[in-house]
């Protein structure tokens, strides 16, 4: 916590002094409004998900949660294979996360702390592709995945997701902060090979950063929609997001059903977020300073 505005000298004289207490309250009120706006759509999802159709189409919409959530949830599980979708999303997100953390710590360590010919050029490629829109390669990627025989299979989402330029970029910055050059040099003087230096020096120092990257990657993968929609089979290999869009896709949208699905699909993410909020916030803010 910084107290940089608490200095003894305050400009503005009596007018500002008089507003002292009001100034203390107003920002908090403003923040409360912001937070209420942040939470409202989530609250409203729960409200709709816990009423039946008649309930939400009443003349005056219900403003409080009702008692139909369990029934709606049962209906979701009957309408679509939600367990399968949850399982698929979990498999994809875990595989993608594990691989991204491994590959980005390896490459990040090399880019941050080792000297080799072509390092600058290779890293420029990484930085450049962080800025290229993902959609640029999507049509040929679809063709490629088809040639590999992966249409409608989870490999189609997992394998292209195993690495990302963003995680390498991010981990290189983390490495420059956390893995001190002195330690790497000391390991070399002791005759330690680079792989062992990575394993015994870099990786332990990077553990908190790796945790943050893992969470960011997991969230991004769990929430991904365009690519799974295009390449997966919505009946055989749905992910949660694909199943949700299908629930909503009919001619008539049954909102209590759809938003029950949305609540069920959001719950794992929100639980994860609440448990690890502090480090996720820290990770996002650290990215800002470096970016």
């Amino acid at each position, binding site marked *: *916590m910084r107290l940089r*505005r*608490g*200095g003894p*000298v305050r*400009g*503005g004289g009596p007018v500002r002094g008089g507003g002292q207490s009001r100034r203390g309250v107003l*920002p*908090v009120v*403003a*923040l409360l409004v912001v*937070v209420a706006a*942040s*939470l409202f*759509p*989530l609250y*409203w*999802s729960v409200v*709709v998900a816990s009423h039946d159709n008649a309930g939400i189409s009443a003349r*005056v919409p219900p403003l409080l949660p009702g008692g139909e959530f369990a029934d709606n949830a049962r209906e979701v599980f009957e309408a679509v294979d939600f367990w399968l979708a949850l399982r698929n999303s979990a498999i994809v997100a875990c595989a993608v996360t594990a691989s991204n953390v*491994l*590959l*980005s710590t*390896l*490459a990040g*360590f*090399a880019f941050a702390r080792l000297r080799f010919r072509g390092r600058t050029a290779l890293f420029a490629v990484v930085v450049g*592709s962080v800025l290229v*829109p*993902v*959609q*640029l*390669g*999507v*049509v*040929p990627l*679809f*063709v*490629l995945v088809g040639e590999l025989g992966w249409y409608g299979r989870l490999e189609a989402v997992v394998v*292209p997701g195993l*690495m990302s*330029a963003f995680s390498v970029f991010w981990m290189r910055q983390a490495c420059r902060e956390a893995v001190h050059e002195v330690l790497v040099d000391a390991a*070399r003087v002791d005759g330690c090979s*680079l*792989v062992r230096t990575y394993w015994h020096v870099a990786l332990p120092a990077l553990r908190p950063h790796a945790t943050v990257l893992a969470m960011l990657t997991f*969230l991004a993968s769990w929430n991904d*929609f365009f690519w799974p929609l295009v390449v997966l089979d919505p009946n055989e290999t749905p992910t949660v*997001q694909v199943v949700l*869009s299908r629930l909503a896709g009919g001619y008539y949208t049954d*909102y209590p059903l*759809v938003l029950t699905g*949305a609540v069920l699909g*959001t719950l794992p993410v*929100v639980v994860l*977020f*609440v448990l690890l*909020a502090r480090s996720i916030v820290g990770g*996002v803010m650290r*990215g*800002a300073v470096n970016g």
Partner: protein
Amino acid sequence: MRLARLDRRVTPYLLVAPFFVLFGVFGLYPLANTAWMSLHEWDLLDGPTAFTGWANYAALFTDPHFYNALGNTASIFVIATVPQLLAALGVAALLDRPLRGSAVWRAAVLLPNVVPVVAVALVLTQLFGRDQGLVNWALTGLGVEAVDWRAHSWSAHLGVAVMVIWRWTGYNALLYLAAMQAVPRELHEAAELDGASRWRAFWSVTLPSIRPTVLFTVVMSTIGGFQLFTEPLLFGGGGSGGVDRQFQTLVMYLYEAGFQRFDAGYAAAVSWVLFVLCAVLALINAALLRRVVREA
């Protein structure tokens, strides 16, 4: 000793190799292939049928649906980005002061960003519903006529923009907050000694100091804004974005061309135009912003 030298020379490449192998196959190769594909008549499932040179681009530049999608994307981008970044600055300024429970405030502000886009789009589409939406209920309560949000472009753009604003304001606020906290204290103390008002200090001390971050968010919002897909797709109307394509974005048009009409060559051309647009806009934004902030 020779082994150690070999280790130092070769191992760095082995460490970056797993990333670059995968990246080459699933990142760079498709990227290059997009250019090649865009010069062909190419069926998504059956492969190329003819080399047509610039024909896809020529067709694209006379395609009213393309200009429509371009206009919609630009309109939603402006409606979503300008208020979003201004609000993010405000929220960051609110968070950048002695505050009890700052960790909780920050987490609450970031929460919308981790909620799946699909879920966000679904609930906001419900809120903007014509007959049972809460927004129309509130409007009627205030004596304003209910709006058929999906039917007009202005209202549909606004609805989609609200989804984007909701999702990204807090995230950008945290980026600004991080940058604000890195501003040296002495600068603020100097401003206070000079009798600068809080607003004046914000405008002449804080804002110039966080300029790189503002630049970064503008560039990232541009790239993100021109890739907008999930929100307008789920707002209704399938890939076409409403009966008159009133909220079809560029990526939705790409999706329609490539994955609904299977016209891969044409979709690849859309991809390239999208990329060039993003690059040019990011550069223009960067240049404009640099000038504006310097003059302030």
